[in-house]
């Protein structure tokens, strides 16, 4: 029986960062795909509060919430540190991880979902958030320095998911012209062997986001 398991969904960017972290550390794990429309008793047992993926199982211990999992992975498997050693640099990385999750992911998804006048506002607001990231990468190859680290894994959804959200949501947020540094970082990131070997197929993501958007819009129509 595998010592480490990940309960996840192959389209989820939150699960992807957990898998990347484990591979980065050279930790073997078993991946258990969850059907989010029909959640398993196992998921409900191991994440009774949120009932969400990802959940990391390590022996008999279960840890939900991707950023909490990343901290756990970092502290349990000490080889190949993901985070900087210096507390101030660590705090800075934690700040940006929180910022990006709260403002950029939900900003992008919000812009994807919105329609009409609201869409314009949502796009503008999301772009403002990405501008901060553009500034952060200035002068660096990766957010973590010369090599990928914690913050790159947390932001790694950008090169893989953002373009899909833009296509499905019929909008443009981050392009090479407006965000040349983010674009360059994206190229470097996806070329990293670890990332290249472990990324979902684009058409799968397009299908997933198209279905999600459709479903949400149908709920909104029912409300009216």
């Amino acid at each position: 029986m595998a010592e480490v398991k990940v309960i996840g969904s192959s389209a989820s960017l939150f699960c992807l960062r957990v898998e990347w972290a484990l591979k980065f550390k050279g930790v073997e794990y078993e991946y258990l795909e969850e059907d989010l429309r029909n959640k398993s008793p196992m998921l409900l047992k191991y994440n009774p509060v949120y009932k969400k993926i990802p959940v990391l199982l390590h022996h008999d211990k279960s840890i939900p919430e991707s950023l909490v999992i990343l901290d756990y992975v970092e502290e349990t498997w000490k080889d190949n540190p993901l985070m900087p050693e210096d507390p101030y640099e660590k705090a800075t990385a934690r700040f940006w991880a929180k910022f990006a999750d709260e403002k950029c992911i939900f900003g992008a998804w919000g812009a994807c979902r919105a329609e009409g006048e609201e869409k314009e506002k949502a796009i503008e607001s999301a772009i403002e958030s990405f501008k901060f990231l553009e500034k952060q990468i200035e002068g660096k190859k990766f957010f973590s320095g010369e090599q990928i680290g914690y913050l790159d894994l947390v932001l790694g959804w950008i090169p893989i998911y953002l373009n899909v959200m833009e296509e499905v949501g019929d909008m443009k947020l981050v392009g090479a012209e407006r965000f040349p540094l983010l674009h360059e970082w994206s190229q470097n990131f996806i070329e990293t062997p670890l990332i290249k070997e472990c990324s979902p197929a684009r058409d799968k993501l397009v299908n997933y986001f198209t279905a999600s958007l459709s479903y949400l819009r149908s709920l909104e129509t029912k409300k009216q």
Partner: protein
Amino acid sequence: MAEEVLLFGVGRSPFSGRVEMALKLKGVEYKYVEEDLANKSPSLLKYNPIHKKIPVLVHNGNPIVESQVILEYIDETWPGYPLLPKDPYERAIARFWAKFIDDKCLPAIFKAFYGEEKEREQAVEELSEFLNYLENELKEKKFFGGESIGMVDIVANLIFWLEAWEEASGTELLTREKFPRLTNWTHEFVSNTIVKESLFPRDKLVAFLRNRIGGPNVSK
């Protein structure tokens, strides 16, 4: 060079309260700067240009923002009193609950306090559900951190604000019958010497909240 620790905060904010509690528990000397949120100082805007919010901890010129990020920083920088346990799994559990309080309880509290009338009832119900999770998590422990106050307890200082709002609005939510453990916890928490020093005076807080609630409804 002598160590310099500055904390920009607002007395009635639970978020700057958390940082004060942590610094005091660690025995760290710091200079407190009270901010006027209606007239933010150039220093605040310089140290937190992105969110322009308190609290901000400035350690030897380096600013750290977001209360939970600050708490982790404090724990890693100053030895002595541990805010988080040593074991990685126990640390993960603590981080999970700290996050739960801010991600779930806080927005529900906010909606219950300041939301539009039709939102408030649902917010109170939701909040009750969330508090139940915390009630169960306490189990037979004195504090979330066990025998002594830890990070989750510090983040749960929101409960003090919740109680003040209950008094200000005449609402009953955190009753001894429904939440015996949380009620005990609150009593232990506010009785702690260091916590007491960091909490905003309850009567002033109630007065402030009464004023806020009593005012004209702000339409969105």
